């Protein structure tokens, strides 16, 4: 598998600085602007995630990056090649796993793999060194109709089919949607191994907890990028003091905290409530003392408050509120 960025010698674009360069990219469908002036660079060898809900524009962006859609404005380059001008060259070099089930249900697992290999002018044998770690788990079901595989196995087969031609970059559009928590974790373990081999991977997901597995992420909402950075930096940049609040009556606590005059954001987070104070720069201890007093006066007397670091989901909601004025 070649990992050099370039193609033909002498082409000034052959060694691309970035695996993906998106510049002011806009795509409309009728009245709807699906992607609205997005710019982002993805480095060679990066595992890069687009995180956002349905309708954020992730799929439109992915379809454009893999040359299936043409920008209305702006430009998109992949491996230094323009997705419009150089589409035939690019198509041979990108791997793409669409969000919807993309296999032939009436063909066996092996037949699907053979089909995708032949479309790209290669063979399963030639691609085996790349897909072997994944295919190993599928091999016992090689003869089974793809339509009769379990969800997790279908997903692994689709990944094999996207990789069998040894692409230089892999695009995965919501590979884990609807998959249970443990299978999702296993899928990300596979992506880690592919990335360790030097492959550039671009992945989208609606699951905030998956962001942590990426080198960098772009938070996407309503066709725009809210933020692009490492997961750590996104958490670190949270602009206000954040606390985890625990009390027996979690719902009652939600209501009480929302009535606190300095509350900026109050959301349930699993077994705790995340409380963001509107006052930047105030000492954590003073905020905690004020909260305990306020809650006590409202009849919640077992409040435990702890200052915490923000995660991706906190940051996403904060920027969403800022964008929409929620």
């Amino acid at each position, binding site marked *: 598998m070649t990992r050099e960025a370039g193609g033909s010698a002498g082409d000034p674009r052959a060694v691309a600085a970035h695996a993906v360069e998106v510049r002011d990219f806009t795509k409309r469908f009728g009245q709807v602007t699906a992607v609205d002036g997005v710019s982002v660079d993805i480095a060679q060898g990066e595992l890069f995630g687009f995180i956002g809900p349905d309708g954020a524009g992730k799929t439109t962006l992915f379809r454009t990056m893999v040359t299936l859609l043409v920008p209305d404005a702006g430009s998109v380059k992949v491996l230094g090649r323009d997705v419009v001008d150089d589409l035939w060259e690019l198509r041979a070099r990108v791997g793409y796993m669409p969000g919807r089930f993309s296999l032939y249900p009436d063909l066996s697992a092996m037949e699907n793999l053979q089909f995708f290999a032949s479309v790209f002018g290669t063979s399963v044998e030639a691609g085996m060194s790349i897909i072997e770690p994944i295919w190993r788990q599928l091999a016992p079901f090689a003869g089974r109709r793809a339509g009769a595989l379990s969800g997790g196995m279908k997903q692994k087969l689709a990944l094999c089919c996207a990789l069998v031609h040894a692409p230089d970059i892999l695009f995965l559009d919501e590979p884990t949607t609807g998959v249970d*928590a443990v299978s999702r974790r296993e899928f990300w373990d596979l992506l880690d191994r592919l990335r360790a081999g030097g492959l550039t991977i671009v992945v989208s997901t609606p699951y905030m907890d998956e962001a942590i597995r990426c080198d960098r992420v772009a938070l996407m909402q309503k066709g725009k990028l809210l933020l692009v950075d490492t997961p750590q930096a996104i958490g670190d940049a949270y602009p206000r003091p954040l606390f985890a609040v625990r009390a027996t009556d979690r719902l009652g606590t939600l209501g009480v905290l929302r009535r606190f005059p300095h509350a900026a954001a109050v959301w349930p987070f699993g077994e705790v409530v995340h409380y963001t104070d509107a006052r930047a720069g105030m000492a954590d201890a003073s905020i905690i003392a004020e909260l305990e007093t306020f809650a006590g006066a409202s009849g919640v007397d077992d409040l435990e408050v702890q200052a915490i670091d923000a995660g991706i989901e906190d940051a996403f909601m904060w920027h969403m509120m800022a964008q929409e004025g929620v």
Partner: protein
Amino acid sequence: MSALAIDARGLTRRFGDFTAVDAITFHVAQGEVFGFLGANGAGKTTAMRMLIGLLEPSSGSATVAGYDVVRDAEAVRRNIGYMSQKFSLYDDLTVQENITLYGGIYGLTNAQIAERTRKLLGRIGLEHARKELVRRIPLGWKQQLAFSVALLHQPRIIFLDEPTGGVDPITRRRFWEMIYETAATGTTVLVTTHYLDEAEYCDRLSIMVDGAIAAMGTPGEVKGAFGAASLDEVFLRLTRPGAA
């Protein structure tokens, strides 16, 4: 009539040699929010289909809203609401047409439909979209609308099958607040989800593994029983023994 919203005893379903649901016994009290968890293929959907009277058990029994799911399947279906991510509303009908259609199916009068439409759209802030085709409204709204429509006939129990897939984290939390408001009125909620943080919002939950219930209790009890810090950890240990 049983005081329990759901009372399942030894509920079993086999497909040929395969036992999809293996003698599950559990109950859900009226007004409870019960999380029904499990990996893909663990048997959740099969169990749910038996509980809503769409699939006959191979053995065992269950009552839902006090009615036997086999003998009184019709009464069960009249007394429950059901919402799933995959099928709930008709995309090619407007918001109003969907409400009217479901109201009609559940035998509501035109006056009842008009009254409940007004309340429903007011509650979720969708009055302006009454004449929009459902396929044109955002997913988050669609989910809230589907949930409200499933409650239109004021069922005693509502079954929610992965109701929050694909939405942003704020919309997901707002949906759960609707679940709580509904439970506070005495309606029982049984919900499946792949978001384990959501499972923490349930009064009680069960985790199915290979057709059987492998853990059940309040979120605190379940974590305590496994000495685990999070439900995520419990889930991993149950579904991939040896991996954790």
